[in-house]
């Protein structure tokens, strides 16, 4: 297949089989490609299979159909540069923030003296340089999630998977996190798959918004967002922005019969 894609999802399907023999097809015929450095937002109904898709791409689960290539290679070959951010930060309470950020490197056995400095830099980048020696219970939810983002970035991933990373945050914190993630993404140049329930967040952040329909999960729309970068607050109120939002709403709405 084509090597110039960061990710190729080729006709991927995923069917769960329960113990009583019933099968539940969660994803079917998914086909999309992500260029290196692209920011792809994924939206869709709850239960449409977005988390399943991310887990399949990260290699945590195997697709039952089709294949997924990361930089042209099947994921099983041990790709080293995928990182994931979950909805909850799940930091280790017995480690300070700096050591939490370093955890992936310890898992990989690649932690060096240099990595300590890099982890500190990452914390500074998200405005938590002064909290390196603090513990997660001393941080707010938004701060904890920023530490979790640093933990994902510390291994220099080329592909960052984020599964509703700001879903548990209040609207104000969420806005500032959006700015932050745009900045981080532009600074690191990694490709991002960003799952969210917020359509405006998806539009504001994404180069593309992929809409996943449910039962079974499949792509029902793939919309390029042609807004200039870096994006600021003003883009939220532009007509182009609200046109994108209503277009995506209509795709999701059609599915549920709400529209």
């Amino acid at each position, binding site marked *: 297949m084509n090597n110039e894609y960061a990710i190729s999802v080729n006709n991927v399907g995923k069917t769960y089989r329960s113990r009583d023999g019933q099968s539940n097809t969660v994803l079917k015929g998914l086909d999309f490609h992500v260029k290196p450095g692209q920011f792809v937002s994924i939206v869709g109904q709850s239960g449409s299979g977005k988390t399943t898709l991310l887990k399949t791409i990260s290699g945590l689960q195997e697709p039952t159909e089709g294949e997924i290539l990361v930089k042209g290679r099947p994921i099983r070959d041990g790709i080293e540069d995928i990182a994931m951010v*979950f909805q909850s930060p799940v930091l280790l309470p017995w480690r300070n923030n700096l050591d939490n950020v370093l*955890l992936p490197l310890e*898992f990989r056995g690649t932690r060096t003296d240099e990595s300590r400095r890099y982890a500190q830099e990452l914390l500074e980048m998200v405005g938590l340089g002064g909290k390196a020696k603090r513990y997660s219970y001393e941080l707010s939810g938004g701060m904890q999630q920023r530490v979790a983002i640093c933990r994902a970035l510390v291994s220099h991933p080329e592909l960052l998977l984020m599964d509703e990373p700001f879903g548990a945050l209040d609207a104000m914190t969420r806005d500032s996190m959006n700015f932050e993630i745009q900045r981080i993404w532009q600074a690191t140049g990694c490709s991002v798959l960003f799952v969210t329930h917020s359509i405006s967040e998806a539009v504001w952040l994404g180069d593309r918004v992929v809409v996943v329909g449910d039962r079974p999960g499949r792509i029902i729309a793939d919309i390029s967002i042609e807004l200039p970068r870096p994006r600021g607050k003003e883009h939220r109120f532009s007509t182009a922005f609200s046109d994108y939002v209503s277009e995506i709403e209509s795709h999701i709405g059609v599915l549920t019969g709400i529209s």
Partner: protein
Amino acid sequence: MASPEISDIGDVGSDGLRRSSPEAALGEPSAPRPKRFSRDSVAAGAKAVAGIVGLFVVWQLLVSILAPPEYLFVGPVSAFAELIERPEYFASNTLVTLQEALAGFALGTALGVLCGAALHYSTTVRSFLYPALIAIDTIPKVALAPLFIVWFGFGFESKAFVAMAIAFFPLVINTYDGLSSVPHELQELARINKASPWKKMTKIDFIYAVPSIFSGAKISISLAVGGAVVGEFIAGSKGLGYVVLLANSQVDLPSMFAAFIVLAAIALALFFIVDFAGRKLAPWKSHAK
């Protein structure tokens, strides 16, 4: 809430316990451990001591008022008098029981943690061993004591093994529970980063399970003391269980009650030592949300 100024002046006679730990004085609040002797824990300790003293007072009052015959019931005063009269007798027998209980507890803990880990990490072990363990757990461990005496003789070993058999199960269950409650995100984080099973166990699983393992150990430590005593009941010539038995045959109730008091005291002390160790090893637990 009482205002700090008031409670600062004259509460608990905390002789020698400085309220603010040196770390706090240095303004270094980053470590996730509670202050060593916080006002709360001093107050809690004082209440606990008051409760125990109160119990003794009520007990003695009851005995003084109702005046039961000495072959039926005695008060703490007679019991303590007995302790003071024969300190070596009680000390040497306490030491015997303590050693049996601690050996049994250590063995039971080691085996229990191993078994709990095996149950968690191996589906094969789990499907074969779990039902069997639950079945064995329903046997009253006291009923195993005669068997252990047949196997291991009348000495130290048989009592330690009875203690072990009783101390074992809470640790199996709690280790297994603790390991199973590691959040799935952390498992996924380990897998995405290709952590070896060993790294995952030592950097996440077992540290995560520490508080749960210690809840098991807190139950087990008192059970181990009881186990040792049961062993001594059945075949012993030493230990507090033997003291109780001997006192019983001689209708020497002060001696029997003295043994009860010592037993309760060592069980309590061991419990608090385990509890303290657990807090030291898992200080983050006190900050859990």
